[in-house]
């Protein structure tokens, strides 16, 4: 049987890294743990092949090393000399992978079945990409700012224009008394009383 166990087309290699997974709380790997493993395998095969009653005796382990790695083969419950093909075993294991991992407090990376790729969890992606939300907030703030600045500059320029026309009117009003402009009277503008400081101050 050991001839068929290692490296054949029916056998799987398992590698367990308890210390990496659990650190200080690592448990020791002993025969009881091995029994649990064989029981977990039997459970996985039972759930996959509905009806066939796999037992712990159908799971045969060999070549255990201090690394904690070993090979195992699965024999059919009806005929113990017939070994299950790799494909069936693989599907069974993949289906119940989480349960098997949970039984040993390990993960896909620390309880490795060589040649069985783990089913990876999809990356976390929220429904609305958050960056669009931030983008919208920033654009909204900037847009509001631009509109505010443009409106305020328009209001300022209108106010300045009003002030300018008011000043112009006042300028025009200076020479108009009784509704008559100075120029219309035909007189000469007497600069002595003007308020321009062009001349030498006293």
């Amino acid at each position: 049987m050991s001839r068929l166990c290692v490296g054949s087309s029916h056998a799987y290699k398992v590698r367990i890294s308890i210390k990496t997974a659990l650190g200080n709380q690592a448990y020791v790997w002993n025969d009881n743990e091995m029994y649990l493993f064989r029981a977990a395998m039997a459970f996985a095969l039972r759930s996959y092949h509905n009806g066939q009653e796999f037992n712990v005796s159908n799971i045969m382990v060999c070549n255990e090393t201090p690394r904690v790695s070993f090979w195992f083969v699965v024999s059919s419950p009806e005929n113990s000399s017939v070994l299950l093909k790799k494909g069936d075993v693989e599907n069974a294991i993949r289906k119940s992978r989480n349960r098997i991992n949970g039984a040993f407090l390990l993960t896909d990376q620390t309880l490795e079945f060589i040649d069985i790729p783990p089913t990876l969890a999809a990356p976390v992606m929220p429904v609305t990409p958050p960056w669009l939300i931030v983008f919208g907030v920033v654009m909204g703030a900037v847009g509001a700012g631009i509109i505010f600045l443009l409106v305020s500059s328009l209001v300022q320029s209108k106010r300045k224009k009003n002030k300018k026309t008011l000043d112009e009117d006042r300028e025009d009003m200076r020479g108009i008394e009784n509704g008559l402009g100075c120029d219309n009277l035909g007189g000469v503008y007497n600069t002595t009383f003007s308020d321009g400081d062009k001349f030498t101050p006293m």
Partner: protein
Amino acid sequence: MKLVLPNPGLDQRIPNHEDLDRMEKEEVDDRPKWDNKAQYILTCVGFCIGLGNVWRFPYLCQSHGGGAFLIPFLILLVLEGMPLLLMEFAIGQRIRKGSVGVWRAINPYLTGIGIASMLVSYLITLYYNTIIAWIMWYLFNSFQDPLPWTQCPLNENRTGYVPECQQSSTMDYYFYRVTLNSSASIADSGGLHWPIILCLLAAWTVICICCIRGISTSGKAVYVTAILPYIVLAIFLIRGLTLRGSLSGIKFLFTPDLNELINPATWLDAGAQVFYSFGLAWGGLISFSSYNSVHNNCMQDAVILSAVTAVTSVYAAAVTYTIIGFRATEKYDACISENIRTLLNTFELPEGNITTSNYDEAFNRLNSSHPDTILQLDIEICNMHKLLSEGVEGTGLAFIVFTEAITKMPGSPAWAVLFFAMLLCLGLSTLFGSMEGVVVPLKDLGVFPKKWPHEAVMGITCIVSFILTLLFALQSGIYWVTLFDDFAGSVPLLAIGLVEMIAVVYIYGADRFNEDIRFMIGRKPNIFWQVTWRVISPLIILVILVFYLVTQAQEELTHLVWDPDSEEFPSLSSVPYPSWINIIIFLLAGVPSLTIPVYALCRLIFVSCKKTR
């Protein structure tokens, strides 16, 4: 020294000292003014301190002998940077116009210098704002946990990751594929990548609103954009020093290798770095100092700004290398752990048999007993030195190395937000200066009608620039950015800087310039400034320019591309440029530089045609 070229009509073109005093008192002209001195200093500091200080200076420092690089850097800062800086400040404050106005006033034939400055500023603004758009993309994406660049997408049957991500890293994949969707060479344009278009839109609108009224809006914005980077750098310094392995980074950075001082490339790189990091020849500094009062002490400003730039460069380098040291230590530990795992698995040894402390002796023991097996395993040699020096320049530093380091810190989204906000502020404050160096010359040249308000001019400029930068939103965008960075921001600036110095010293007249400075600040510049202005600084710039042209002409033009199908993947592979790139390079580097003589020539022909008629 009375070596001055004849310059008739100079007095008619510029206001004399009495006029300047009178204008100052009456506040006649409607030129914008700084609210206070702090605003002016902060704007200049923000302009000078940009992305280059964070991702170019630390790389140069480390690759040219660590602490020893500071010696050529500081020497050339004093001999080359400070004189040119004072010259630009003083000439702007004296003639009180933007860059085109100043050179036109000195001599109408020299208007080409102002136009060249404007062109260079514009080309740099275009690609710089694209980098801002990338930073904004990362900033927007930092508001989630886990950060999107920590995960690879899965392949179809969910048994593994997408091969491109698997072979490189999640950070590389996120930058080159998700953010940019980069093609395999600059010739392969691909289509437009819409996330980048949206980020470009955001970047241009932010610039528009900050600069919309000139320095009255940008002057307020710099209170944030110039001060925030210092605060964030301090936070990162404290965080960085508490991380494991940070001191190995700092030691690596500052370990002096005095042999590098003999290498001429070190001095050339130091000179070029001083030149670019001061924003000289962009035209922005001339514009900014023209808004000052006439008697502002520009000599003090120049010295202060030089000191601040030097200190900030070293400060940013220290912070950068604490983070790089941390990342390198993490990667080294991961490498050793991986090797240990491989050895344990192959030799079926129990866990804990080989640890990081006895790794070397265990490895040697196994190697001597089973050399063939070890050879087959292809164990990677974990080299701390290599990890400390990889990928630490340019966009690679910010978007790949730093993002990786941030993912390893607890509370990564907060650190990512801080980091990218800092980069955004650094970039924005530089762009305020370069937009000033573009828009003011456009107004001086009369490109826009005089009665258009500043808001309209800025708005039109931003919209046109946004459309032009869609070039960088193509799948080959990153290669275009690198092309612009290599050619638009290098030779033209050196040429313009050289011509500026010669124009002020020998055409405007160094004696006249000294008198102007005595009028403005009360004393004549001392012998140090005289010697550097007349001889030393132009000579240094000329030497750098000549060496630069010579080395560029000799090299074959290649660019680094992200090509998943190449053999060197995940390293960037070196691919030659297509032949039509020479036209583009001529447009980027040649046209601004040649504007100076071409404009003078055209004006000469125009004037002589008018005379003969």
